[in-house]
């Protein structure tokens, strides 16, 4: 469950966010007016002295944020990742076993035209595909990194799992 985040203005310094984790640690992030961040880590919620204070430049902080957000590697236990920005979302969607999309190019599947969802990258071993092209072929075990509106995802998932995709599709018996 997401933790409760408390935001406070620190006049003359910047903004402060404080949160207590499910395991009882306290985290405080200070965003200074000049863009640097400070991360205060308290092992227990009521500790007076922080166990560590980490200072981060703006680009480092954003990189760390992406790592924590799972953008670099999906934690094993998490099936699907989702980052929502208002209506817009970035989702990591695994290609289901037996998906009729396997073996087809992105152009064949026409996800964007049919559901509005754009594939921006494909995560696969050993080498992920960073800027996915229409000619890229979906393989079994792929995870698709997608951008779209939250409401477009149900149709996208249905299409990815069941098709139908174009000519001579064996899975075309789906509704």
């Amino acid at each position, binding site marked *: 469950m997401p933790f409760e985040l408390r935001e*406070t*203005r*620190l*006049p*003359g*310094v910047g903004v*402060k966010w*404080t949160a207590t984790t499910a395991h009882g640690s*306290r985290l*405080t992030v*200070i965003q200074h007016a000049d863009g640097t961040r*400070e991360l*205060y880590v*308290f092992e227990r919620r*009521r500790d*007076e*002295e*922080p166990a560590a*204070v980490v200072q981060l430049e703006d680009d480092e902080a954003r990189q760390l944020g992406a790592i924590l957000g799972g953008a670099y590697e999906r934690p094993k236990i998490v099936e699907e990742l989702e980052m929502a920005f208002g209506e817009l979302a970035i989702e990591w969607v695994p290609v289901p076993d037996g998906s009729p999309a396997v073996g087809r190019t992105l152009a064949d599947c026409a996800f964007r035209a049919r559901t509005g969802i754009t594939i921006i990258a494909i995560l696969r071993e050993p080498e992920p595909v960073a800027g996915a092209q229409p000619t890229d072929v979906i393989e079994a075990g792929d995870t698709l990194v997608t951008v779209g509106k939250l409401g477009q995802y149900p149709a996208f998932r249905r299409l990815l799992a069941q098709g139908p995709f174009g000519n001579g599709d064996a899975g075309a018996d789906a509704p």
Partner: protein
Amino acid sequence: MVESLTLGELAVTVALLAGLGLVSSRFGLSAIPAYLLAGILLGPHDPTLFSLIEPSELTAFLADLGVVFLLFFLGLEFTLERVLRSGRHVGAGGSIDLALNGALGLLVGLAAFGPSFEALVLGAAVYVSSSAVAIKGLIDFRRLADDETDLVLAILVFEDLAIALVLGVTATSGGSLAPTLLLVAKALAFIGISLAASRWLARPLDRVLDLLPRETFLLVTFALVVGMAAVAEAAGLSEAIGALMAGVLLAETSVRTDIEERFFSLRDLFGALFFFVFGLHIDLAALDDVGWLLALAVAVSVGGKLVTGLAAGRVGGFTRRQGVNAGAALVARGEFTIILAELLARNPGIADATAQRFAAFAGLYVLATAVIGVVLMKESRRLGRLLFPQRPRLDAG
């Protein structure tokens, strides 16, 4: 007396400021006391061993620019939004601080000068904490995550507001009551008009400044700042408040961060020179004269701020130990105390001897409280445990 400052002397001065600033930063001190000390050492008064720089029209001009930039930057931080959003502690915490330390300061002022205008200004100089020292300490000693830090910063915002008014009248008023009241009214009007202008003028100003090429942008902003300082001076107020309000005016514009980036180095340079030049005028021989006053003021104001922290902490729902932390952060006095002394020295209604005495007091008082304040801040947790030994109940605060 040599009426100029050679490039060689300037180089030595600035190098010394850099060196001392580095040393003080290693000890966790803000650079302000270090710059003051450099001025005292290199100045013409006791101790005369290293006397190298004579105060001159040039050093006075450099100091002038320092005041203008210091206050301009303060103004840039000063938006209505910031005051409104700085939290629930501003009103209560700030009022307790003003009532307690304002009264104590006034007491010190009366003891020093008798019932007079300079007693009032001394009261303000003793009342106002140093935002620069406090914020540096909070960052260095890793206190930003503490809840009571919110209280400290809120009180500092309140003090900034209160002192802005005093700054407006310090350089000119005094004498009888009626003209002083008129000046206070003028200062209030000036602040009010500027705040209103910052709301209505910000957009057009923004559009103009945004269109300007780089060099012109710098010059136009500079002209605006110095121009507002001059307008305030012409209105019989101090230039300090003009510069402050120029900052307020630009605080709501989108070019604010641009300005901050561009002028940051200027503020640091001229700010350092301002504190240094102020140090030049301090005569340690005056210690005989102001020594008892200094001891009284230091004792009273250290105690006063600690009690403020406890009382404001109690009202704000903090533990007593947190109150000690908050109080300790407020002990150091700094930039405003010095600026007030400088402005008073320019007041034609104040006798030179009085101004001299005031300046010596202010300089030494800042040196003493800044050092004590930083030590207290560093040790405030231990102090809190010492004063309030029982473990706070786990369900409290």
